[in-house]
């Protein structure tokens, strides 16, 4: 393994983890206060804050703290998670006011002198605690036809594409549909009819795919008054994306493609 990296991929730890050599030492532990936005429609119409202090370890993530609460303290706490390793996109939530995946946010990177605020993602109807109704999100996703449409004859082998043609839309193939971008968009917060960054990113993935023939249809769909022109380039989506997709750039490229197709 190469040890030449001088800078850590993420910011420096805010907790003193001590000297870590050889991996034989004990993992340091610390107390973490979680402040979670609760909503239990069976008992009350009103949402409220719940607070727990738990002892966690330097290797733990926000998801581990939520698990600790759910499994050891309060079983009624509800949230979604499937793979728990940043691939399935189930556990997007607002952590300290920013949309993050709970399974990719290490506790040691947060400011632990204050409670960690955990809220459901904004703009979608909350069903219980941190669980929101994702149907409006997926409804927009379905509308942009997120599948390959090719009018040519079916090839006997795979559909060939050059490395450059693949590179053109590589960034937008990374989307895991966690809704962190769409639910960080201030336009979407007030206008639920806006297609939202995620739908546009997934349209981008096919519009710029050399094997796909339905780019024009997708551009027409997104040339709607609730389509790409609703974007105000606030860059919240790019900041929120746990996969590092340049979402605002992708939206700008779709805008240019709509313009290029119209003149």
């Amino acid at each position, binding site marked *: 393994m190469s040890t030449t990296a001088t800078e850590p991929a993420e910011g420096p730890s805010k907790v003193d983890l001590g000297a870590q050599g050889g991996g034989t030492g004990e993992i340091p532990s610390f107390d973490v206060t979680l402040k979670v936005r609760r909503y239990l429609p069976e008992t009350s119409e009103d949402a409220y804050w719940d607070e727990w202090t738990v002892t966690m370890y330097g290797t733990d993530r926000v998801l581990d703290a939520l698990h600790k609460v759910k499994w050891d303290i309060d079983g009624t706490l509800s949230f979604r998670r499937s793979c728990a390793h940043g691939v399935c996109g189930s556990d997007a939530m607002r952590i300290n006011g920013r949309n993050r995946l709970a399974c990719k946010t290490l506790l040691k990177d947060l400011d632990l002198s204050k409670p960690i605020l955990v809220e459901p993602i904004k703009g979608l*109807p909350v069903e219980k605690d941190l669980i929101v*109704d994702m*149907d*409006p999100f997926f*409804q927009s996703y379905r509308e942009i036809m997120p599948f390959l449409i090719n009018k040519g004859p079916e090839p006997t082998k795979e559909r060939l594409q050059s490395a450059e043609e693949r590179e053109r839309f590589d960034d937008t193939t990374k989307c895991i549909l966690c809704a962190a971008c769409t639910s960080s968009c*201030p*336009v979407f917060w*007030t*206008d*639920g*009819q806006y297609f939202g960054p995620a739908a546009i990113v997934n349209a981008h993935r096919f519009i710029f795919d050399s094997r796909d023939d339905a780019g024009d249809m997708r551009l027409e769909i997104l*040339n*709607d*008054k*609730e*389509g790409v*022109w*609703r974007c*105000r380039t606030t860059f919240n989506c790019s900041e929120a994306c746990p996969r590092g997709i340049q979402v605002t750039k992708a939206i700008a490229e779709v*805008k240019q493609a*709509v*313009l290029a197709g*119209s003149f």
Partner: protein
Amino acid sequence: MSATVESTIAAPRTGRIDPKYTRDKTKSGNFEMLAWLFMRLSGVALVVLIFVHLFSNLMVGDGINGLDFGFVAGKWADPFWQFWDLALLWLSMLHGTNGVRTIINDYAERDGVRFWLKMVLYAATTVIIVLGTLVIFTFEPCLVGADGMLLESTPAFCETL
């Protein structure tokens, strides 16, 4: 087995999407695209129009001290400045109106409020554009008092008319 047994169970969320998320299917044409394009093009044009306007009014000659009724009257006697100020008026008003329209669309949550805010905006814009255009083209620099004499503030070139 009975043939009338319900064979499917409705999906738990069927038909439960809040109508506020449902887009109406009417086509909006290219209006939003043209509005977006207009904002960029008029923005570039306005940078030139505004800075030349400021330079000619505040820097050239006596600068800000020479700015009075006569100065404006002199400018509007020239078709070049008439056209310049007309372009400035129209582009800035439409650019600003479209910007405020966008803000109203973004922040007004109730349909009725959004509609009436936009109506007020469009009415104000229309009044200002019509009034401004009329002033630029019907401006009378040589004002005459009740006694038939030129008023004090009239520019010098009125004397020779």
